[in-house]
């Protein structure tokens, strides 16, 4: 005689754990925090070494100088560089009733990064079992992203730029956490190899209903040959927002901001 066992969804009584409600509350904290942020912009490429962080920091500084309230969430937890690019000293993070105060650059860019928390020269390491870390590590990094979004007192912002690590996984986690899909700014270098990686990343972003704002071509005029930005722009029907040379001056970022401004 088989046992009569109801399925998970047939059980309707609440219990103290109520894990789905705990997850819902986490999402609500993210939404509440970002209610004063006009737009979240994910800066992605799918490729490492194309200068996402460099472009993110330059754009954030330019936006701040143009009078917009900008912030940067450094979502590259294993290779955080945004504080250094914004010339932020490592200092204590202050806890307030409202959350953790972001660091603020000389131009007024608000920033939060794992680099502000880690011991100098040490990698990001989590407490946990010594084996099979792949099972839970990515989950912990997703939780870190959620807490960076929800627990930093970002305040009122015109743009919160999210500097993503290479690949698309962090972007997918971001899209799941936000109340609405983020806008996307793609960064590439001119080469066909970069083009192919960025195409894949932009396709993944489009699949998640994210709005691609345009593509920035970085490291232009140097040793990298190709026309990646033009090809990506044609394929996705988006503008080439800027071509950034090696060692751009502040003037270059002002120009980038003016071109990007209408898209942001």
């Amino acid at each position, binding site marked *: 005689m088989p*046992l*009569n*066992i*109801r399925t*998970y969804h047939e*059980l309707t*009584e609440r*219990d*103290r*754990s*109520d*894990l789905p409600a*705990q*997850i819902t509350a*986490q999402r609500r*904290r993210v939404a509440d925090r970002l209610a004063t942020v006009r737009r979240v912009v994910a800066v992605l490429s799918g490729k490492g070494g194309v200068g996402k962080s460099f472009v993110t920091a330059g754009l954030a500084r330019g936006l701040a100088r143009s009078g917009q309230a900008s912030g940067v969430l450094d979502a590259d937890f294993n290779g955080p560089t945004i504080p250094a690019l914004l010339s932020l000293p*490592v200092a*204590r*993070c*202050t*806890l*307030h*009733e409202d*959350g*953790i*105060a972001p660091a603020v650059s000389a131009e007024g860019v608000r920033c939060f990064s794992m680099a*502000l*928390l*880690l*011991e*100098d020269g*040490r*990698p*990001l*390491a*989590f*407490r*946990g*079992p010594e*084996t*099979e870390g792949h*099972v*839970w590590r990515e*989950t*912990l990094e997703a*939780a*870190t992203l*959620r*807490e*960076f979004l929800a*627990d930093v007192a970002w305040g009122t912002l015109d743009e919160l730029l999210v500097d993503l690590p290479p690949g698309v996984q962090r972007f997918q986690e971001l899209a799941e956490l936000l109340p609405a899909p983020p806008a996307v700014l793609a960064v590439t270098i001119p080469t066909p190899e970069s083009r192919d990686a960025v195409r894949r990343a932009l396709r993944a972003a489009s699949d998640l209903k994210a709005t691609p704002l345009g593509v920035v071509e970085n490291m232009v005029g140097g040793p990298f040959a190709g026309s990646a930005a033009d090809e990506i722009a044609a394929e996705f029907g988006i503008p080439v927002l800027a071509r950034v040379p090696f060692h751009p001056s502040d003037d270059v970022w002002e120009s980038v901001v003016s071109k990007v401004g209408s898209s942001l």
Partner: protein
Amino acid sequence: MRFLCVECDRQMQFEERRLPGDGTLAAAFRCPTCGRVVALLTNPMETQLVASLGVKIGGTTLPPQPMETVRGMVTTGRDDAFEDGKGETGKGNGFSPAWSPEAQERLARVPGFVRGMVKRIYLDYAKDRGIAEITPAVMDTARGELGLEGM
């Protein structure tokens, strides 16, 4: 994750949680009809996976601390990464439980990166329950009740 008493066809209710400190977790669930109790025992990897989600089996009575998961799980954080700002006094006002010397000693052994949060959680727990002095026993009870693995 739910538990069903098949014989009574009733969803079992969370009863008690224990964290032995070796990375494992024990959570007891009781059938509201027949009173039968079963225990969920998780190995360290399963415990870690639940903790990674930022949820607690059995729930919690205290609101989440800012960056609770990051501060509780990162082992390479700077000791002085966080500082309390003005008005950051924790839950409630006025009454503040005392710390026994043994509890202070134990708190001092907590890594600096997470110590401020741990201290505040124990203070909130004690205030919530009108406990006048925080002792190691209170800390042990709070750890189990609040699911503070490793704190």
